[in-house]
């Protein structure tokens, strides 16, 4: 959280709506530890990462949906080793990412 707080605070001062994604569980090897965070604004800005590049695109879409509905979501990304290079995690691990609205206009 500390690592992306400066960006989040700048975005707040600019009136952005922000969703926060957090790795809450990692099964097998994962590129980022549990607790790793990524913030996404409704206007499309991003800070931090949850996987080292593999699932950020998918998390970005979920974050926009979460800002739309205001409802948090838990999403699992799990990819077999053979598929790993096609989509998802290049290391073949499984991660659960919790995505929640952080700042949202009523």
């Amino acid at each position, binding site marked *: 959280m500390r690592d992306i707080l400066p960006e989040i605070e700048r975005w707040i001062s600019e009136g952005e709506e922000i969703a926060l994604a*957090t790795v809450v569980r990692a099964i097998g090897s994962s590129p980022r530890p549990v607790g790793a965070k990524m913030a996404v604004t409704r206007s499309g800005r991003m800070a931090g990462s949850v996987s080292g590049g593999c699932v950020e695109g998918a998390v970005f879409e979920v974050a926009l949906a979460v800002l739309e509905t205001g409802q948090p979501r838990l999403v699992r990304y799990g990819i077999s080793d053979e598929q790993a290079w096609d989509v998802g995690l290049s290391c073949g691990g499984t991660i659960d990412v919790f995505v*929640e609205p952080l700042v949202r206009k009523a």
Partner: protein
Amino acid sequence: MSGEIFSALRQALHEEEAVVSATVVSGELLGAKFLVFEDGRTVGSLGSSELDAAVRADAETFLKSGEAAIRSYHLSDGRNVEVFLEAHLPPRHLVVIGAVHIAIPLVAMAKELGYRTTVIDAREFFATRERFPHADQLIVAWPDEALAQIKITPQTDIVILAHDEKFEDPALHVALRSRAGYIGAIGSRKTSEQRLERLRRAGFSEQELSRIHAPIGIDIGAKTPAEIAVSILAEIIAVRRGRIGQPLRPAKTSPAAVSGDGG
């Protein structure tokens, strides 16, 4: 995350106060949040006082370890709730009393481990920027006066290298009354025993004195200042993680046990 909880979390991060955030990640209360601060203060709720109490009790472990993980809670109404607990800790702070030779590699290595570092010595020729280019803070003052200027929390590790009772005793008096995560003092077994005797006479209990790691460090046969710094930092890490500091290889496969000649 509600505005109230996010502002409380932001404030804690800015003020370098340790806090655990707990988030429900399963079931109908998905997203409910609860913050537990070092002093036991809480903000928010996970929707059940039973769950809040259980999480609050577990938060203490997370505040100590600095970890993040999901815990399952079985409530008396039969529900099973998964909660993500995450510690948000300020950077660890190494306070070194005695700007002696060993302190130089100790501070440099601690910096590499992500520590904020403070070096304290009453002698201005010792606590210089030239000797300690890596130190975040140099304080030229008596240890007890200097420690009074520092916020000592469970994230603070205090290493006393002064090797002189007129420096180390005042420092230990302050350290033992603080919530420091680690207190270590350099010196031989004999010096350490004499130090304990002085502190006993000063009124400290055996339980209080058991917090002092002395002779300081893990036994790796350290001789040079840099090796002693490794030994001290290894002990600090082990204490933080609740380990005693042994080889990871199982004891029965050690060369001595296998060959039988003991080297």
